[in-house]
């Protein structure tokens, strides 16, 4: 074996009559979505994705480490909020109905903030897709990350592509049983860790972990653990590319988000064609750079042939770029026969022109504008998020009550929402109508009735405003503006809420 052969990762596929170029063998692999020979119901063709080496593979390793690390470790991050309060940095507190995210506490009625973040995420996704295609699918999607992880584990136990093909063809020996069962066991461990981490987001992590192993955890914890574990194993380990091709709606949507200026993983056919095996004695004139070695097909986790052009199945993970560049280096041809390129650029290059890509175009400007707009709204909502809410609902049935001394009384439901972690006492008062008197149910005597609201809670008070007969005469029409004011007794902070006082028309 020559040194070249020893280094060549594709050589093990070698068949004497299927040499792509000197020292590089054509890999015996077929795209799963080839255009001919289709059945009406497609049996699944197992994809033995080969390991790629290169820039994009390294980026994918980094993204995998970063995303899984955040997912598995985030629930364990502590964040001090004060005594007696949850100290988990990120917690969806189902029991209390709160989403805690570091210093932010989101109440159910503030769920629009979450909506805002989701809208922003969606818009960012649109923008990235318009600029660089399916970066989400190729690098960041959990299906991609976990599948990549499962394939890495599979490779660890069973070897790379050829070893796995051989193993599958082998009879069930002890060695095969060991390798297969260790693969599935490892997948299950990863799946269990994934399901386990998921439930930690919904309850104090150390407590739940302890409850979980001692059998004390609430039933939904076990159910969701089982659900997430099962589906991680099934979708990441077993189903893999089937999820992207048949289950996910996003590839269909993304098709509408590319345009001629989007960077997509592209086979530069003008440079590659006509393809064919290359003899050592041959020159490169009159033929393409593609030696039809199928290295790009062999590394593809989706099992497709990028040389067929843009396809629904392509998640644009760019592993074929790495595989092809490795080959191009070996045969001393220029890099990037497969590369991130735009349709417009491709047209220009065909005619001998240079790379063409417009990042600033109506589509990207629109998405950026929307991101700024929604971002400003969410930012404003975050900054103006109050720790106290005062709501006043005027009783409408009846609108007003005639009292025996000729005065008129209105009833109100006053709701004070204390979103702080301490008990607060508020003095309730009104402004806006001369001579009007405020009483609350349970305290009919105080000038400024005091209302105590326990931490993190809502208190509803029935309030009455009475306007005496002589003051009524000064109010024209059938209503007057009225402000309710809750003054925090501790620090004097005032919160005002406008309402109306109604009376019979004069």
């Amino acid at each position, binding site marked *: 074996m020559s040194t070249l052969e020893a280094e060549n990762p594709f050589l093990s596929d070698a068949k004497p009559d299927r040499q792509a170029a000197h020292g590089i063998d054509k890999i015996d692999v077929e795209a799963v979505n080839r*255009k*001919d*020979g*289709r*059945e*009406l*119901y*497609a*049996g*699944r063709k197992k994809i033995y994705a080969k390991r790629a080496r290169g820039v994009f593979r390294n980026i994918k390793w980094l993204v995998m480490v970063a995303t899984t690390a955040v997912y598995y470790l985030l629930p364990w991050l502590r964040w001090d909020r004060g005594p007696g309060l949850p100290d988990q940095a990120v917690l969806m507190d189902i029991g209390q109905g709160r989403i805690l995210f570091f210093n932010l506490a989101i109440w159910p009625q503030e769920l629009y903030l979450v909506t805002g973040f989701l809208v922003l995420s969606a818009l960012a996704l649109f923008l990235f897709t318009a600029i660089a295609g399916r970066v989400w699918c190729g690098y960041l999607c959990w299906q991609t990350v976990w599948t990549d992880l499962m394939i890495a584990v599979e490779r660890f136990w069973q070897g790379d592509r050829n070893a796995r093909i051989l193993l599958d063809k082998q009879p069930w020996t002890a060695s095969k049983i060991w390798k297969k069962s260790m693969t599935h066991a490892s997948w299950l461990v990863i799946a269990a860790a994934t399901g386990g981490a998921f439930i930690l987001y919904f309850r104090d992590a150390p407590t739940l972990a302890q409850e979980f192993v001692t059998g004390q955890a609430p039933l939904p914890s076990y159910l969701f653990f089982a659900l997430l574990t099962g589906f991680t194993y099934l979708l990441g380990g077993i189903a893999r590319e*089937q999820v992207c*091709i*048949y289950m996910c709606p996003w590839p269909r949507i993304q098709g509408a988000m590319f345009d001629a200026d989007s960077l997509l993983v592209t086979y530069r056919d003008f440079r590659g064609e006509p393809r064919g095996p290359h003899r050592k004695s041959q020159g490169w004139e009159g033929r393409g750079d593609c030696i039809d070695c199928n290295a790009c097909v062999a590394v593809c986790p989706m099992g497709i042939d990028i040389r067929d052009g843009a396809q629904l199945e392509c998640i644009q993970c760019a592993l074929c770029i790495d595989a092809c560049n490795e080959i191009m280096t070996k045969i001393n041809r220029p890099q990037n026969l497969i590369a991130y390129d735009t349709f417009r650029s491709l047209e220009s290059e065909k005619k001998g022109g240079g790379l063409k890509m417009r990042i600033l175009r109506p589509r990207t400007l629109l998405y950026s504008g929307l991101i700024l707009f929604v971002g400003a709204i969410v930012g404003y909502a975050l900054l103006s998020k109050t720790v106290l809410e005062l709501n006043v609902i005027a*009783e*409408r*049935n*009846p609108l007003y*009550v*005639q*009292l*025996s*001394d*000729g005065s008129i*009384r209105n*009833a109100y439901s006053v709701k004070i929402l204390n979103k702080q972690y301490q008990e607060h006492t508020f003095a309730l008062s009104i402004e806006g109508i001369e001579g009007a008197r405020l009483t609350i*149910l*349970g305290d009919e005597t105080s000038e400024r009735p005091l209302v105590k609201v326990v931490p993190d809670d809502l208190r509803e008070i*029935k309030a*009455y405003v009475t306007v005496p007969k002589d003051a009524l005469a000064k109010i024209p029409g059938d209503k007057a503006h009225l402000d309710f004011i809750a003054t925090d007794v501790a620090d004097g902070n005032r919160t005002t809420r406008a309402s109306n006082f109604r009376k019979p028309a004069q």
Partner: protein
Amino acid sequence: MAGHKEIDEATGVETTGHVWDGDLRELNKPLPKWWLYTFYVCIVWAIGYWVLYPTWPTANGYTKGMLGYSQRATVTEEVKAGKAAQSGLRDRLQKTALADVRKNPELLQFAVAGGKAAFADNCAPCHGRGAQGGNGYPNLNDDDWIWGGQVDAIQQTIQHGIRWQGAADTRESAMPRFGLDEILEPAQIGDVADYVLSLSGGKADAAAVERGKATYAEQCSACHGEDGKGNAELGAPNLTDAIWLYGSDRATVMESIRTGRGGAMPAWAGRLDPVTIKSLAVYVHSLGGGK
């Protein structure tokens, strides 16, 4: 499948062989087999569902299913559980003296909430959804009470009703039918009406008021008081305030004197349990006019 291997020119993909309108062909986009099997599993699942749950209509009903599930039974259980969850507070409400309920915010809230629901079911048809009353049916939001606005007086009224036949302790009083029984002449009734209206600052003819005053002192003051402020013990309304059960125009006041009115309210003891009546009393008292 005839023509199964036909290739579409534009895409190079095989067609299913189906042709519509002479030239419309369908590309063969094969359904994965596992998806097909998922459909079969769903069919099996559906059969299991038929066996376990109520599914098929029959001539006289429907198949009950092995689990014996029924939505009605579920609701019944939920109602029972809800009642059980309330029982602690209901017990406390029962044991707490009526006047003390207000002093406990938790009990007050519970009683008001329960009273509000019971009010909507039982009282709203006459008194209105918001207890705003109507012609002949008192507004319970105001501070004018014919039979007393203290919480125990309200409870007493709810329990035994007003002029309710057959209820032993019902609120009983009858204003004479001054016109119908010819106790007073129509002219006298008009004079008394003028006098009564003048008590609350209404406009009336001075001479008529003077005539009516004498008749009032003779016929009405025993119950309504010399000053016209009424008497809750007797259910005699205050005639000096701004609130009128039947209306404050002269004709309506005359009609009241002529017929004696005498509206009735059912006695609720026996129809509603004591805790509900207690809640109702607290709720009505809480509407704003309670004394």
